[in-house]
């Protein structure tokens, strides 16, 4: 009897509580999906930022939902949108823009952000990041969690090999010749330290796009409906990548795991590595030796893709929610917040203004490698992005894998991939 009474009072007070919240529920509710692709600090920082936004704007309630990897996030957002219950905003890979347009689930920012102030904001980002965020004259994504690959090198290993520890390879030839000096073998002739490591598991197209850009070729047009996979310059770039292992023997053979690459670098298994700037804070915290960060080496030119995630606003929300979403995105990409985010993760702050904040200046003065990514943006191009993006990149990845593992020649693999991509993209031309 007593327990019944107790549960009754509890139910009553719960009802009273929910009435209380109902009374103040004219606030705008936003659901916000975000992915995390690097260490644990990213999720924590996003939550800190949304919480402090809600403190400043009590009329907005943001439910920040960690949705897994980039892949999981786009799957969840699309599934939710198909079920008629999409989030209001989400961070999703910039390259998924065409997919999201094709599925008709997002709106362009220009349709909501119409004031002069808004327009100035839309123009405040680095152009390299906007390449993947605009199509047909409209802006569909706002750069936020953006990165670019850079070269990390172990200064101690360079010194040991008789190289200048302050000088990273500037071009393809130097990367090979440095690599050859850096390779160390044990008494049995087995390699204990490789020269360089360009990971190829999972999404090899991304780092490979560094090589193709340096070789002066673009992989897909900006309409996202035509690829250039079998261009002779792409073939040459792939041949170079394959030769690093087979001919010059400065890189481990076979497919190289993306995830264990920083670890291989820390363990001295490789003296140089190519990986995302998103790993910068990780390397800074964990490398037991002096390391340097440089732009990727050049061939005809310097070059690298951009990468990472953009903010998207979903179609199926009220006008009030859309406006509130734009305001939130505007706030979180403002210099102060962008600087905080960049320092916590290593992602490249997306506006020049963010680099001018006092916090960012102090950080860069203390840790100059953070600047390399920004300098590289001048040479950066849009990450490979097409309609049916996941499928096209999968075809391309398979071709790269086939060439790297030696089942097909570079030329043959890329020709097959181009034919397959043409077949799929034909209906979008």
């Amino acid at each position, binding site marked *: 009897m007593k327990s019944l009474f107790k549960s009754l009072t509890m139910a009553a007070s719960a009802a009273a509580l929910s009435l209380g919240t109902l009374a103040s529920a004219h606030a705008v509710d936003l659901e916000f999906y975000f992915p995390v692709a690097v260490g644990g600090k990213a999720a924590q920082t996003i939550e800190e930022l949304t919480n402090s936004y809600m403190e400043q704007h009590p009329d907005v309630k943001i439910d920040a939902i960690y949705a897994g990897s980039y892949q999981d996030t786009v799957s969840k957002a699309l599934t939710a949108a198909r079920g008629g219950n999409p989030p209001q905003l989400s961070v999703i890979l910039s390259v998924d823009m065409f997919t999201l347009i094709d599925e008709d689930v997002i709106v362009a920012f220009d349709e909501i952000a119409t004031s002069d102030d808004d327009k100035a904001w839309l123009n405040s980002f680095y152009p390299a990041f906007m390449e993947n965020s605009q199509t047909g004259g409209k802006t569909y994504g706002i750069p936020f969690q953006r990165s670019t690959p850079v070269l990390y090198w172990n200064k101690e290993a360079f010194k040991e090999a008789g190289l200048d520890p302050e000088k990273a390879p500037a071009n393809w030839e130097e990367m090979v010749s440095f690599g050859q000096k850096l390779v160390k073998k044990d008494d049995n002739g087995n390699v204990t330290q490789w020269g360089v490591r360009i990971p190829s*598991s999972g999404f090899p197209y991304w780092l490979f796009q560094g090589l193709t850009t340096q070789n002066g070729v673009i992989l897909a047009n900006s309409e996202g409906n035509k690829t250039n996979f079998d261009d002779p310059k792409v073939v040459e770039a792939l041949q170079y990548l394959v030769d690093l292992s087979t001919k010059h023997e400065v890189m481990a053979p076979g497919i190289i795991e993306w995830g264990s690459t920083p670890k291989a670098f820390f363990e001295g298994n490789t003296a140089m590595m190519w990986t995302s700037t998103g790993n910068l804070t990780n390397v800074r915290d964990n490398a037991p030796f002096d390391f340097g960060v440089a732009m990727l080496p050049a061939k005809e030119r310097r070059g690298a893709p951009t990468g990472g995630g953009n903010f998207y606003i979903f179609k199926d929300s009220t006008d009030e929610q859309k406006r509130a979403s734009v305001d939130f995105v505007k706030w979180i990409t403002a210099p102060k917040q962008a600087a905080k985010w960049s320092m916590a993760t290593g992602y490249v702050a997306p506006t020049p203004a963010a680099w001018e904040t006092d916090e960012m200046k102090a950080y860069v003065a203390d840790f100059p490698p953070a600047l390399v990514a920004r300098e590289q943006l001048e040479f950066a191009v849009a990450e490979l992005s097409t309609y049916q993006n996941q499928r096209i990149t999968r075809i391309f990845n398979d071709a790269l894998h086939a060439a790297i593992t030696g089942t097909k020649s570079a030329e043959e693999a890329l020709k097959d991939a181009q034919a397959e991509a043409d077949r799929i993209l034909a209906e979008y031309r």
Partner: protein
Amino acid sequence: MTQRLQWIYGWLLLFPAMVMLMAFTHVPAVTTVINSFFSTPRGRREAKFVGLANYENLINDPTFWKVLTNNLWYALATIPASIFLSLLMALWVNDKLKGRSLVRMSFFAPTVLPLIAVANIWLFFYTPGFGLIDQIRMGFFGLPENSWLGSQETVLICMMVVTIWKEAGFFMIFYLAALQTIPPSLREAAAIEGASRSTFFWRVTFPLLMPTTLFVSINAVINSFRMVDHIFTMTGGGPDNASSLLLFYIYEVAFKFWDTAYAATLTVVLLVLLSLIALGQFFFMDRKVHYR
């Protein structure tokens, strides 16, 4: 009248289970078959009837044939190996030996652990250069490092090893339970007759275990088409689809490429394949397994 009432009672009792079975098994299966005859709806374009076009695509899709062959090899290797290993382990821990519960527990441990978690552990084993296997190979035998998951020749075998390791412990439990139902008097009688251990095993134990073997083998077949979690974590189907299996490919087509119609077509293939195997096992083998 009473007969009619019984009829209603019967259906009422069946009703809850039937609704669940219909809603989560039969309706989706039928919808899948229907979807496989339509094109994929995308945003502004509605699905339209395309007849057998999806099936034509399927026949011309080299990736489909590759994952199907992979899956057959995968099944052929993992099913007998895990059954053999589980029987061996069960026979061993069924005997009286020191620390029996500890051994039993360690054999069963892989089953308890989530596959994604153990895949991460195996990922470390297979890491070239500083992974466990390579450290042993390089440290003790002076062999060069090997990219286990990065080569098309070894990657599927590596996946099979993880699966066998994971499954054997689970099947061992069934064999162990079956072994304990065999009356000890049979062993005593055999001993009096002077039968050797191997004769006893092949003539008595093994035939008595046949129903369990049938059950375990059906489970193993289903699992060989169903367990793909470790592929997500370890290889993502690569390199060049060398470690991709049918179900993994279906997931990719459905939730990465968002080509739901083609995914439905692939699912129909999986459905037909599994139904045929299950029918075969129940109808043809069931007659032979029971010891008479």
